[in-house]
């Protein structure tokens, strides 16, 4: 007999001591762990753990476009494939890409495309495959972050990295980095991606709150960006340090 669990949300999203349900402060981020170069067969790859989100990204390219009619004669194309594993959410997710996945893939493409010099690779494509192994709110932000890391790891020339985080409104208060429950039960959710190329929005907020959100996001993003930079550099610096000690 199938187990039936009602989709229930807690009435209050703040605990009595003013902290959030998972014990965070209002503007505290979930713990983030990143890694690059995790997949051997991809040109570039990255892995991200952001709270309970676990995401792999792999980059291939530049290479031929299949199907060929998608190729453009004057510039290259970027294709992003966002997919969720069947076991990534509580109820089994159907493996076929649905409306949501296609939309997020498109959003991520728009987010990453301005960074690349696609005009240098006419008729070719870069492909980013993102697989969400475990989802707990804010996966699209996490995906933008990890996709940028994988692109940089592949050695694709880029104008900058992308960093993304969600800010939102729960129980009438603005918070940073919403978790799954807060995302569903809260009032608004604003995923923001720096380098300020793309902003996405759905929910109820007035303009002042919106502005406030953006500043909040900026603060959080600076922190995440620093982690990104360190992760990328450490891959090489670690090897340098291994031998600099012996030399001096």
């Amino acid at each position: 007999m199938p187990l039936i669990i009602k989709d229930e949300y807690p009435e209050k999203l703040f605990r009595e001591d003013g902290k959030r349900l998972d014990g965070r402060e209002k503007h505290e981020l979930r713990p983030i762990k990143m890694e690059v170069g995790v997949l051997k067969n991809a040109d570039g790859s990255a892995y991200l753990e952001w709270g309970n989100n676990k995401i792999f990204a792999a980059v291939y390219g530049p290479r031929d476009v299949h199907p060929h009619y998608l190729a453009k004669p004057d510039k290259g194309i970027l294709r992003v494939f966002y997919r969720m594993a069947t076991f990534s959410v509580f109820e089994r997710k159907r493996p076929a890409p649905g409306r949501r996945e296609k939309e997020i893939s498109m959003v991520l493409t728009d987010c990453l495309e301005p960074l690349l010099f696609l005009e240098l690779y006419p008729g070719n494509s870069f492909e980013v495959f993102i697989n969400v192994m475990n989802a707990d709110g804010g996966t699209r932000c996490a995906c933008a972050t990890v996709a940028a890391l994988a692109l940089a790891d592949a050695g694709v020339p880029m104008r900058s990295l992308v960093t993304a985080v969600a800010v939102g409104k729960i129980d009438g208060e603005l918070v940073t980095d919403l978790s799954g429950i807060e995302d569903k039960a809260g009032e608004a959710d604003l995923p923001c991606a720096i380098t300020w190329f793309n902003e996405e929005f759905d929910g109820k907020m007035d303009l002042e709150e919106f502005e406030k959100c953006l500043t909040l996001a900026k603060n959080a993003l600076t922190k995440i960006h620093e982690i990104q930079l360190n992760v990328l550099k450490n891959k090489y610096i670690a090897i340098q340090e291994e031998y600099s000690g012996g030399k001096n």
Partner: protein
Amino acid sequence: MENEEEELIEETITDNDEDKELPEFDGEDISREVVVPGEVLTEDTKNFLPGRGTIFNKERNKIISLNIGLKQINKNYINVIPLKGFYTPRAGDKVIALVTDKNPVKYRCDINAKDEGVLKPRNTVKRGKTRGFRGGGSESADNSTDKYQIGDILIVKVLSADRLNQPELTTVGQYLGKRRDGIVISIDPPKIPRVIGRNGSMIKMLKNLTKSNIFVTQNGRIWLKGENIAYERLLIDAIKKIEREAHTVGLTDRITKYIDNEKKIRGIN
């Protein structure tokens, strides 16, 4: 006739001249500072100009890096030497190609670039010698794709390459042609200059210590053949070590020590 050519190649390969090392990986004058895409290299745009792997930002008041790599200042240019990347064919490069397909008009070769290389039969035979009064050479040799088979390993030269068309290749020239033996390994193309070393120092050292023939090509593939399998294994391990530590200081000395050590451990003299 063909066999003679082959033998010639085998003889000359022992003293193949090393490609000159690109100046960017020169040991001392390069800082070992790792930079990542989007990182600001300098805000002093009056004295510096963006060189390779760098760009002005929109307001033209900063120079930012495009690649993950090492920062280098050359006169008034700021460059970033990439640590990872792909091979872009340029005319004149010698590369190792794998024949993946052929038809009566041309061969298609995998050269580890975004496009497949095209090798036309007229670029596989020497011209001018057999043509003339006597004999005249057979025309068919010029125009058929019988010389090489699918799966052959060739050392080829890039005749022409740009970003729109497929690169055109040739097998006519010194050291070029089919390889019948040896091993081909591939590493990251940006790290090839380190395997060659400054003025070929690294490659000379590798050859002397492991008594092997090595042919390093710009597309990240390395052809090697040693006296026996033990030397070849040692050489491959050494090259993988060079690839991993390409961005560190004092690499040649360290690799020398490594090979000496490994020889003792593995019992090769």
